[in-house]
C-alpha cells in the first residue's frame, strides 16, 4: 500500500512539473515584443543595453523559437532541473533559490510550530466538551479569524503592534524580532483552522461507541484521552493538516511579500512582477513539489498511526 502511494506521488510530482512547465511556457510566449529589450535593460541598465544584449536575451529565452519543439526543449530543461539564470539578477536560479529557501523554511517552521502550540490543544478541550462555553467561544473566534485573509491579518498586526504600539518592526530581516510579526500572522490563521479540525475530530471520536465502551470499562477521562483519544484523532488530524499545508505555502508567499521577508514567496512575487520567467519556473516548481513531498509524508504518518487498509482522506 505504501509503495503504491509512493508511486502515485511520483506520478503526481511529474504532472506538477508538466503543469509548471506548460504555464511558464505560455507565460514566456505572452511576453510583449520588446520583452527581451526590457529584460536586458533590467539586467544591464538602460545605458548599457544594446541590440546585441537584447538578441542574447532573446536567444536565452528561446523567444525566437516557437511551437512544439521549443516546448519540448523547454520541458527537457525543466525536468533536468536546469532553470538557467535569473533574467534580472543574472545569477543561476538554483543558487538564488538556495539562498531564499532557508529564510522561507525558517518562517514556515516557526509559524507551524506556533500554530500547533495554540490550535490542537484548544481543539482537544473544545471537542471533549462539545457544545460547552469554550467550544462555542472557539467557534465564534475561529469563524472570525477565518474571515480575515492572511494579508489582512498582517495589516492589522502592523497597524496595532508596529504603528500604534511601536513594539515591533513592521518589516525587515536579520534580527530575531523581525520574525515575530510575519510568524504570528501565519500562525494565527493556521491555528484557527487546526483548532477547528482538531475539535471536530475529537468530538467525533468522543461520540463513537468505542469511546463510550472505554468509559464503561472503568477508565477515567484522562486515561481515555491518553490511551484512546489522541491516537484516534491523529489520523484525521494528520490527513487534514497535510492538505492544509498548502495554506502555509500560500501564506508564505503573501506574508513574505508584505513583510519584505527575503524568501521564496517574496522572490516569486518579484519574479512575476519583473516577468523573470526562469525564476518563476524555479520557485513555482519548488512550491509544487514541496507540497507533493509534504503530502507523501502525510500519507506515511497516517499509515504509521493507522495501519488499517484503504482509507478515504
Amino acid at each position, binding site marked *: 500500500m505504501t509503495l503504491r502511494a509512493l508511486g502515485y506521488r511520483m506520478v503526481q510530482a511529474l504532472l506538477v512539473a508538466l503543469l509548471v512547465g506548460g504555464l511558464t511556457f505560455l507565460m514566456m510566449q505572452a511576453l510583449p515584443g520588446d520583452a527581451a529589450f526590457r529584460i536586458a535593460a533590467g539586467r544591464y541598465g538602460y545605458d548599457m543595453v544594446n541590440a546585441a544584449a537584447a538578441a542574447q536575451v532573446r536567444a536565452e529565452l528561446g523567444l525566437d523559437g516557437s511551437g512544439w519543439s521549443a516546448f519540448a526543449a523547454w520541458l527537457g530543461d525543466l525536468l533536468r532541473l536546469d532553470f538557467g539564470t535569473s533574467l534580472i539578477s543574472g545569477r543561476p536560479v538554483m543558487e538564488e533559490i538556495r539562498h531564499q529557501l532557508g529564510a522561507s523554511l525558517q518562517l514556515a517552521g516557526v509559524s507551524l510550530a506556533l500554530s500547533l502550540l495554540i490550535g490542537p490543544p484548544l481543539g482537544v478541550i473544545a471537542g471533549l466538551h462539545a457544545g460547552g462555553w469554550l467550544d462555542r467561544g472557539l467557534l465564534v473566534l475561529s469563524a472570525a479569524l477565518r474571515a480575515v485573509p492572511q494579508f489582512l491579518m498582517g495589516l492589522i498586526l502592523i497597524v496595532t503592534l508596529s504603528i500604534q504600539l511601536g513594539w515591533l518592526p513592521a518589516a525587515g530581516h536579520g534580527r530575531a524580532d523581525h520574525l515575530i510579526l510575519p510568524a504570528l500572522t501565519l500562525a494565527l490563521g493556521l491555528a484557527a483552522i487546526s483548532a477547528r479540525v482538531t475539535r471536530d475530530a475529537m468530538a467525533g471520536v468522543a461520540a*463513537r*461507541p*468505542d469511546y*463510550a*465502551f*472505554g*468509559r*464503561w*470499562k*472503568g*477508565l*477515567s477521562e484522562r*486515561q481515555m484521552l491518553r*490511551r*484512546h483519544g489522541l*491516537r*484516534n484523532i491523529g489520523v484525521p488530524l494528520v490527513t487534514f493538516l497535510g492538505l492544509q499545508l498548502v495554506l502555509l505555502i500560500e501564506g508564505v508567499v503573501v506574508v513574505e511579500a508584505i513583510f519584505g521577508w527575503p524568501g521564496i514567496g517574496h522572490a516569486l512575487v518579484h519574479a512575476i512582477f519583473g516577468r523573470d520567467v526562469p525564476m518563476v519556473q524555479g520557485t513555482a516548481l519548488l512550491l509544487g513539489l514541496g507540497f507533493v513531498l509534504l503530502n507523501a509524508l502525510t500519507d506515511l504518518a497516517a499509515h504509521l*498511526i*493507522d*495501519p*488499517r487498509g484503504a482509507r478515504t482522506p
Partner: protein
Amino acid sequence: MSLLLSAENVSVHAGSECLVQPASLALHAGRPLTILGETGSGKSLLAQAIIGTLPSGLTAAGRVQVAGQVFDPGRPSTFRRLWGRQIGILPQEPWLSLDPLMPAAAQVSEGHALVRGLPWDQARAAAAGDLAQLGLAQAGHRRPDQLSGGMAQRAAFAAARAGGARIVIADEPTKGLDAGRRNDISALLLAETAAGGGLLTITHDLALARALSGDLVVVLNGRIVERGPAAQVLADPQHDYTRALIAADPAAWPHPRPRQVAGATVLSASGLSVARGGRVLISGMDIDLRPGHIIGISGPSGCGKSTLGDALLGLVPLAGGTVTRAPGCAAVRFQKLYQDPPSAFPGSVTLGRSLADLVARHRLDKGRIGALLDRLRLSPQLLQRRPSEVSGGELQRMALLRVLLLDPVFLFADEPTSRLDLITQAQVTRLMVDVARDTGMGLLIVSHDTDLLTKVCDRVIRLDDPAQTRAA
C-alpha cells in the same frame, strides 16, 4: 441466591414525555434476567437508566441499589464508579466498540491495570489468560478489523469484565451476528452466571431469551406487560402482545403444504458461478423458477447469497454459467426488494411522487395504486410522506406495491425483513408470499433466517461455506 442489583420505580422521560413507565427489577446472582421487546419499546432505555448510561437529553427517576449502595438514576454521573468495577457493560455490535487502532489484548489488559490496579506485567498476563479461556489465545495481537464478529464479541466480553465486574449487562448481543452464533453467545453469557455472577440481557431475539432461561420481562411501549420465569412465560404467555410475539416467530409458523408448481419457466440458471472481489463464492448452481414458485436461499453472511440474486437480475456480471429469462417479458418485469427500505426510494420526494413518476414513465393505470394499497393494508395517507417519515414495515410494503405496479414475473427479495421487528416481519412476509402465489410471480428470497425460509418456500438452497453448496 443473593441480590446483586435492584431497581425500584425506574422511569425515563424526554422532557414531559414519558418513555418508560416506572418499572422495578431484581437481578440475582446465578439467575439470568432478560428484558425482551421490539425496537422502540423502551427496553434499552430502561437498562440504560439502571446503569447510568442514558443519552443526554433524557432524564430518569427512581432508585437503584447495587452492592448495598443506593444510586439515583436522575444523577447518572454517580454511576460511573460502578462501571468496570461492579458492572461490566457489553456493548451492541462489539466490533464497533473496540478501539480500532489497538490490539485486542491491550484493550483487555488496560482494564486489569488501570481499573483493578494490577502492575502492567501482571495485567498483560491476566489478559492473555482471559483471552485464552475464550479461545482467543492466538488473536490477542490482532486489531479489531482483523477479528471476526464472534471473536470481537468475545474480546469485548473479556475487556468489559477485566476491571473485576461481576454483573454483566448485555445489550442486543445477537444484533448483527448470524443466527448460527446464537448458541455461542448464550453459552458465553451463561458461563458468567454459572460462576455466581449476574447477567442482565436486553434483546429482541426470542430464541436467545429462551436459551438464557432465568427470568423474563416483556416490554411494550415503555411498560412491562408480563414477567416471570422465562420457560413459563414463553410456554404459556398471558398477555396478548407476548402471544402475538411468540406467534410471529418463524419457528412457530405452520409448515407449508407441499405444492405442485406448473407453468413455463420465468427464469432459469444453469452452471451459475458467482464471484466477489475476484473470489468465486458459488459455482455450478442450477435454478429453475416457475410462476408462483418460491425459492429461498440461506447462509451465513459473506457466503454470496445476495450476490447470487443480483447475478440472476443481471446487476453484477456472472463468473460463469448462463441465466435465461422467459421470452417476451419486458426487462422491467424482473424486480428486486431491498434490505434497507428507506435507501431504495428517492429520499427527497414523497412516496406518492415516486409512484406518480413510475406511473408516468410506463403510462400505467393510476387507479391500480388504490387497489394495491388496500391489498397491502397501507393507508393512502402514507403517499403524502417522505421515505424517512414512514416505518420500515410500511416502507417495505410500499416497495412491494411499487414493483407490483409493473406486473413482475420475477422478484428477488434481498433480506427483505431483516431490519424489521418480529411481528412486522411476519406480516410483510405473509403478504409478499400471498401476492407471489396470487399473481404467479416467481419469488427468490434471500435470508439468513433458515426457519423463516423453510416455512414459506417451495425449495430452500443452503449455502454453507463459499464454493460449497448443496440443495436441501
